[in-house]
């Protein structure tokens, strides 16, 4: 069995856990639960994707980066489908008006479009041509973190953690780009 195979299994764990909670344990507010679990997983995997490029000199995991990034997109897609199918009940007009109306939603949508662009251009035929644009991931990271924080009534310690990690990633990336650190 290849390491890629185990990685895929590991990346599917949050989905299995979600299905277990929904269909076996039962949750009181399923729509909210799907939002939280898929959203937090997508963000965590997005952080992991960028961390790979930051630490590649210390530990080269670049060959797994595409898989992790695609799974981040996969969970973001589930998150979006939860919005359109379950939350909006396929009322596309309402979904669009809500999106335009609420910054919290359109920041998430913009981030999703960025991830969609990256997922499509990660196909081998397109990758060489579009690779240089993949830096937009940092915009997506900032947008989804703000989106996540705005989804709650107040900032919780857990979200402070997400904000902190996002800060570290951005700082390291800037240092790396400006050649202030060699990684």
């Amino acid at each position, binding site marked *: 069995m290849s390491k890629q195979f185990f990685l895929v299994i590991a990346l599917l764990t949050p989905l299995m856990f979600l299905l277990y909670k929904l*269909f076996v344990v*039962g949750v*009181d507010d399923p*729509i909210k639960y799907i939002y939280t679990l898929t959203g937090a997983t997508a963000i965590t995997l997005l952080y992991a994707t960028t961390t790979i490029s930051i630490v590649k000199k210390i530990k080269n995991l670049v060959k797994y980066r595409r898989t992790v990034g695609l799974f981040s997109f996969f969970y973001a897609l589930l998150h979006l489908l939860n919005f359109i199918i379950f939350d909006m009940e396929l009322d596309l007009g309402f979904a669009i008006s809500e999106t335009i109306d609420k910054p*919290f939603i359109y920041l998430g949508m913009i981030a999703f479009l960025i991830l969609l662009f990256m997922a499509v251009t990660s196909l081998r035929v397109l990758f060489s041509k579009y690779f240089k644009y993949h830096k937009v991931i940092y915009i997506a990271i900032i947008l989804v973190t703000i989106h996540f924080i705005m989804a*709650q009534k*107040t900032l919780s310690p857990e979200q402070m953690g997400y904000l902190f990690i996002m800060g570290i990633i951005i700082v390291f990336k800037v240092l790396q780009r400006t050649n202030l650190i060699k990684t």
Partner: protein
Amino acid sequence: MNYIKRKDWQLKESFVTDEKLFKNRRKFLKLGAALAVSTSAVMELAAKELTPFLSMQYKTAKEFMPSSNLHYKEDPNLNNLTPNSYKQITSYNNFYEFTSSKSGVRTLSENFKSEPWKISIDGLVEKEIEIDMDELVKKFALEERIYRFRCVEGWSMVVPWVGFELSELIKYAKPLLNAKYIRFETLYDPKQFPRQNSNLGFIDYPYVEGLRMDEAMNPLAIIAVGLYGHTLPPQNGTPIRLITPWKYGFKSIKSIVKITFTDKQPINTWNKAAPHEYGFYANVNPNVDHPRWSQKRERLLGTFFKQDTLMFNGYEKEVAHLYKNMDLRKEF
């Protein structure tokens, strides 16, 4: 001329049951009971036999239910509301003094000590008083109120509260004529409420809420001391809390220790934290959105799909007159 004005909650003459029907009621009752027994038996069988998923849900509906320890008058439930299970009501709570995780409150609040508990009544009153919780409850006859409960975050539940009308307490407190508002305060005790220590500077504690006097005198506003016939568990605001069913849940302040009558509009906690998001009135209004959450629809706990939100949470008939000259978009 002498005439009797009908109160909002009193039914019209036309609603009175015809005498013939009333006398035949036993027939209806028997028929109804037979129907109820047969359907519930079939449902129970289906739940047990057909799917393990359903039978699990069925069992958990009764889990953790303590036996009733309060004497109260039952709600005739004229709105035909189906209350959420005891487990749902007591394991999905916003109580930020413990944590902002809704499912985390129950375990964090397990050791909350609510005895002894004193409530002080001060401000514009004939005489300031401090009263023991047990003594206070003895003064009023308890009754059940099955109310819709709507959170500003877009979820809702139906709760069989037990309590007494806030107006009874106000009459007992004897406010002065210049008292225009009533202000409530939650216990401040960082030893018991971990997040009062480290609230990250976003919410000021103690938690404060307020009502205009005419709102407070409305018969729908109650002081709850129990739910499902049992005293309130900590996560639901033991030992005493406010319930204003036509307003968003955050208005229904928990674990009250202080009630103040004042001539100035109190600054309530969420309004202070984010004035553009949370107003003083906090009336449930499907036509006025929160900047992040649409208020048109809601997720009733335990159901998957959403339902339409009703104006004033379905209590329009009883409370709309309180706001008739107000612009509800501005005074939200």
